[in-house]
């Protein structure tokens, strides 16, 4: 699905990531951890082609990202669900319209029943007509997750999806991610919350990667 081969990314003369080799196999669940500023977000941006590697090679659905046109990148994004810590929405559209955005931008019609089901799944069906600024942090995170999966993507990339919510809500979001993985989705979650990782490992087989000194390593039993 997504593969890094000795990939590196430099910015402003400094190297943020070095010699990264990794393959996200279909149906796998990965956590990516590391201290703030270690390059977790940069790694995710490389994974969904917002950034291009400065060395090495990254392939997205078997295509080298450096060879993708802008339209190709857009098409690839329709196969990747992206969840950000700061959950970006269009504040002038209702939650339901925001959910349907991935369909809207590809000029497709979303099935109203699917939308309702999805909102029910994340527990937000009673808020479908609300505007994003009216939602709490946890509701926004769940809404972002629902939007990420509405077009049935192959991969879900989540950047600190529990960063702004309490532990109870974190567990709820984790449960949703685990359910998605059991449905066959490939999941990569960047987080610095080791408790969340431990909780997940009790439920599913997840690989834990750690960024240290600009490199990615497999985390050991200390988790």
């Amino acid at each position, binding site marked *: 699905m997504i593969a890094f081969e000795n990939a590196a990314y430099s910015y402003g003369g400094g190297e943020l990531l070095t010699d990264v080799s990794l393959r996200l196999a279909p149906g796998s669940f990965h956590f990516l951890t590391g201290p703030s500023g270690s390059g977790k977000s940069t790694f995710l941006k490389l994974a969904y082609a917002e950034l291009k590697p400065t060395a090495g090679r990254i392939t997205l659905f078997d295509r080298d990202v450096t060879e993708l046109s*802008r*339209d190709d990148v*857009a*098409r690839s994004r*329709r196969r990747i669900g992206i969840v950000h810590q700061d959950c970006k929405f*269009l504040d002038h559209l209702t939650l*339901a319209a925001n959910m349907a955005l991935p369909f809207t931008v590809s000029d497709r019609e979303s099935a109203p029943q699917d939308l309702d089901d999805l909102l029910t799944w994340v527990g937000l069906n009673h808020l479908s*007509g*609300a505007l994003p600024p009216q939602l709490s942090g946890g509701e926004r995170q769940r809404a972002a997750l629902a939007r990420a999966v509405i077009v049935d993507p192959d991969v879900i990339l989540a950047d600190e999806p529990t960063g702004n919510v309490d532990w109870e809500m974190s567990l709820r979001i984790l449960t949703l991610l685990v359910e998605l993985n059991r449905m066959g989705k490939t999941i990569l979650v960047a987080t610095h919350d080791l408790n969340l990782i431990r909780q997940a490992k009790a439920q599913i087989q997840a690989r834990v990667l750690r960024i240290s000194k600009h490199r990615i390593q497999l985390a050991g039993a200390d988790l």
Partner: protein
Amino acid sequence: MKPPKAKPASPATRALQVVPPSGPTAWLTTFTAGAMTFLCVFALALSLASGRLADRWSEALAKTATIRLSAPPEQVDLQTDAILSVLSTTPGVASFRVIEDAEARALLEPWFGPGLPIEVLQIPRLFEVMEADPPYDSEGLRQRLVAEAPGALLDDHTRWRRPLAEAAERIRLLGILSIVLIGATMAAMITLAARAALASNAEVIRVLRLVGAKDSYIARAFVRRFTLRAMSGAVIGAAAGMAGVAALPVADAAGGFLTGLGFNGTGWLWPLILPPVAGLVAFSATRRAALAKLKELT
């Protein structure tokens, strides 16, 4: 909180909805398109009026010529007969007549006042010649007059007609140039407004990109909005401009150039094409600006 079930919006409507509906550039685009179209209506009226004037002057003066006879008093009648004889045998002359003294006095009165003692003045005798179709050969007639009546001078108004027609033609070109400049100014203003709108909606664009929107889709959303705004502004501007032109004094026989400024008959249809043209200008300007700005925002 659940919204009522409504008829699903079309893809075009939904594309329009992804751009926030209001913003500081909304009124700017509408106002610019309206003001420019208003000015364009006047430039169009000027251009059409000068075109009509050029045609009228050319036609009016081209059909007539004047023969001026300046001869010693004892020769005047003799040469008058000769001139009339020449004119009656010249092919291409539809009609001719001698301009009577009273008529000559009336022609001079605006310049010298009503008490003009025309009988004591050496005023040349004038002949009006109307040309037929096909017209007479001016040079041939001129030479025959020189031979038969040495005091006769044929004036076919060429030296008057040419500068007048040229002046009118230049005014028409100036009108067209003004329309082009107004269009270019409108395109520049809308480009700036579109770029500002795109810059202020960087976050919206980021969200749309995250969910897989292509540049062409994002550009289309902005282009639709700006095109509609420009067209609505242009409709208002065209209506106001047409009302302004309609309120100008009506042209009459004694009227000059300014009273002839306006539209005639089907000429009133011309301003109606301005709103679609404004929409087209806005469409191409916004599309170019949007695609360029979207590359910058990467």
